[in-house]
């Protein structure tokens, strides 16, 4: 028999290790009521109900299909309803190689999204052009739209995509309610040529 090196002291499965309770925001808890800041409540509500728009172009799109499937279920984190209309979605997930001919199309999709909107670049090709350093591939979607989270990998494992979505959830939870009206945000959009 082969000598076993791993898992020689297996731990029993303990349900307490598999469940994580969500954190209650700071506030005053009373009998039948809970008083907290509006931004905390709004952040909590927004982060657990993100509606993603999968802009899946190539291989990373297949990994996203695996992420949405039952084994790695992204719907656990509130992204149950994926929409394909940018007017109804919060998170633009760009997964796959974007060619230079596709850049304006991606920009149009981004422009049609309503505030607040977030963008996640999944995979090496969306983040930086990936291995396709050629005349026809856009070297990163941040040349046309502002990106919030980059998920590296070629393709990234479903756990990595879920990690990217969790980081987006952190950003969503901690975002100030006034951020989209500030001058810095307007300056950021102007740097991409978006009014």
């Amino acid at each position, binding site marked *: 028999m082969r000598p076993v090196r791993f898992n020689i002291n297996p731990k029993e499965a303990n349900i307490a290790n598999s469940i994580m309770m969500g954190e209650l925001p700071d506030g005053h808890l009373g009998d039948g009521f809970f008083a907290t800041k509006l931004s905390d409540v709004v952040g909590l509500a927004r982060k657990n109900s993100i509606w993603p728009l999968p802009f899946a172009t190539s291989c990373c799109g297949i990994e996203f299909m695996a992420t949405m499937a039952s084994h790695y279920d992204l719907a656990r984190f509130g992204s149950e309803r994926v929409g394909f209309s940018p007017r109804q979605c919060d998170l633009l997930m760009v997964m796959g190689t974007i060619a*230079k*001919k596709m850049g304006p199309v991606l920009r149009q999709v981004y422009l049609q999204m309503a505030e607040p909107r977030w963008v996640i670049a999944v995979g090496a090709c969306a983040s930086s052009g990936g291995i396709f*350093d*050629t*005349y*026809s591939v856009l*070297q990163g979607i941040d040349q046309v739209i502002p990106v919030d989270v980059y998920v590296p990998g070629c393709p990234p494992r479903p756990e990595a995509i879920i990690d990217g979505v969790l980081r987006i959830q952190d950003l969503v939870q901690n975002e100030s309610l006034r951020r989209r009206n500030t001058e810095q945000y307007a300056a950021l959009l102007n740097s991409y040529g978006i009014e």
Partner: protein
Amino acid sequence: MALTNEIVKQKLSDKFGDQLTNWEEPYGMLTFTAPKELNLKVLQFLYDDETLKFQFLTDLCAVHYPERKGEEIAMVYTVHNLADNLRIRFKVYTDAEKTEVYTVSALYEAANWMERETYDFYGVHFIGHPNLKRIMNVDEMNYFPQRKEYPLEDQTRIDKDDEMFGRGGSIS
């Protein structure tokens, strides 16, 4: 009797004589070269002839040979006889500055987009093509990417580490 390379070669030589040159059979596939004015005539003959009947255009592409001065761009037509299952290759050569070849899209519908792709990547101008414009690259591109003088990489990147790519750097 079944169509073979010898029968094809005999019939072509009877019709066109020694205008067709450079007969080869790499891996069993008959290949020959013609002057570029004859490309449509040869393909029309291959299409119409009763025994030859090469009525399926498999592929149409261009190759850039920078070392052949005066005839750098080669157009390669691959036609197939579906009844007898025989495929032949036919090449014409043209100049790099004045790349003009007659279109075959009147004979084969498939050649329409394939010639647009060849124009897009090699700059071959097809005389008589109904809609010769770029098909796969960005419309504003002003050069022909697959010619050998242009590099593959995107030239707008500023953050590439030359050492990692084997160019210059501190090692070589």
